[in-house]
């Protein structure tokens, strides 16, 4: 579903040039859930933003659904992958009602008005239809993250890019959101790329995890490795140790 070859991203110019992602390659199969774990600043979110088409100064090759995508994407390519951000307080327009939040992407992608898709979008993430009338500040953090997921899914993407979707939430609410994400993946056969600094969330959600450090992947762990705490690199061993005190 996703294939990435030699992806490089750098910020800044001349002497201030900072290579954030250094020639990484990976692929994600259809219906698979891939985790990327690492510390702040390791480049994990940048990889995700390049996949989503938000960062445009990458070099290398990205293909989605066996189709190579360019830095400037067509609407069809943009529809393939949608993103859910970390902070539900920051990622939803504070002065728009929920219905407008959910209808806007549909209109932006020239797929009609979008208002008719609102009830179904809310139902899909387990929110009552009456929430369409509300403003974001009238929702709790968990409900808001559900809206962010609904917004991503309203375009019927095949790929969902999740950037720390639960790290701003309480563990009890995190459990609800993670369950929702697992259910949606099962029902709709979605492909996930989940970025997190929390190994236990990655281990719960993902079939496979890549450990990232300073812009490169230093380790790859499959489900059995994650459960047994087996690692193949020094850095991931340290990460495991500090994650499970």
């Amino acid at each position: 579903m996703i294939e990435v070859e030699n992806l490089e991203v750098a910020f800044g110019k001349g002497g201030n040039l900072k290579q954030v992602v250094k020639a990484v390659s990976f692929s994600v199969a259809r219906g698979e859930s891939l985790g990327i774990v690492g510390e702040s600043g390791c480049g994990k979110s940048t990889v995700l933003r390049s996949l989503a088409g938000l960062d445009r100064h990458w070099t290398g090759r990205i293909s989605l659904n066996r189709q190579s995508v360019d830095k400037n994407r067509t609407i069809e390519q943009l529809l393939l992958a949608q993103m859910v951000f970390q902070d539900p307080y920051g990622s939803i327009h504070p002065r728009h009602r929920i219905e407008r939040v959910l209808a806007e992407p549909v209109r932006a992608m020239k797929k009609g008005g979008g208002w008719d898709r609102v009830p179904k979008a809310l139902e899909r993430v387990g929110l009552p239809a009456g929430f369409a009338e509300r403003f974001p500040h009238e929702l709790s953090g968990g409900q808001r993250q559900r809206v962010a997921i609904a917004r991503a899914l309203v375009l019927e993407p095949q790929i969902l890019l999740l950037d720390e979707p639960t790290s701003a939430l309480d563990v009890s609410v995190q459990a609800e959101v993670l369950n929702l994400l697992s259910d949606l993946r099962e029902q709709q056969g979605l492909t996930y790329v989940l970025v997190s600094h929390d190994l236990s969330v990655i281990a719960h959600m993902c079939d496979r995890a890549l450990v990232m450090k300073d812009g490169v992947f230093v380790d790859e762990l499959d489900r059995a490795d994650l459960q047994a705490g087996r690692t193949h690199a020094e850095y991931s061993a340290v990460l495991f140790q500090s994650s499970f005190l």
Partner: protein
Amino acid sequence: MPVPDSTSILTVRNLNVNFARSTLKAVDGVSFTLGAERLGIVGESGSGKSTLGRAIMKLLPNSAKIEAEALEFAGTSLGEASEKQMRKLRGNEMALIMQDPRYSLNPVLSIGNQVAEAAKLHLGLGKAAAYKAAAGMLERVRIADVERTMRLYPHQISGGMGQRVMIAMMLLAKPRLVIADEPTSALDVSVRGDVLKLLDELVTENNSGLILISHDIRMVAAFCQRILVMYKGRVVENLVRLEDAQHPYTRGLVAAMPNPRHPVRRLQVLDRPSIDAAEVRS
């Protein structure tokens, strides 16, 4: 300095906090005593754990009404203490370490000046001596290249370093009580362990009491000797070991965390009606 009574640093009996005209109690009948130990307070957002910490420091806004049968800290009744007395205690005898060093450090003061200011204020040192004390303390919290760091401003240092600076500043006066409110939740997991270790080291050295407020029940259980679990402003359980948890809320919180060693297809979510029912019965 003679230690007055190491068994009890802080005594809280039947503490209630409510805001403005609200009848809802943010903290509802909380009682505990703290010795020279590590006490953890866990709960979800809105459970009243931070309000409890702030009520002890008397840092709540004027709209908050604090009532308690007893709120005693090292022989002083905090309930009757005037603002002037509190100002003397805060930073000197009791310290609060907050969540995000990016917001709790002064952005326009260099690290050196900031830590030295604490030394001037609480230790009554002169300028040069305060600077020296600050440098010594920063070295204690294992900041590499102290000279250079002291010239930097908060936005130029990392989160883990910022939290170390906060700890240095707060523990400079060797307070008897340290309240750490989510000290590690803005930090990376790899730095988290170091910060906790450092906090423990300094607190043990000063023979003071530490209250660690966090939503991460597993981390608190690994680090603290005793845990209070708060739900809707009340302490629902007082635990020594997490495995002994009886209350459905505590058990629910533990079960809601993904655990790679016990993989489940779906995580357990909190059954709030049954928790509330258990609360009514007790």
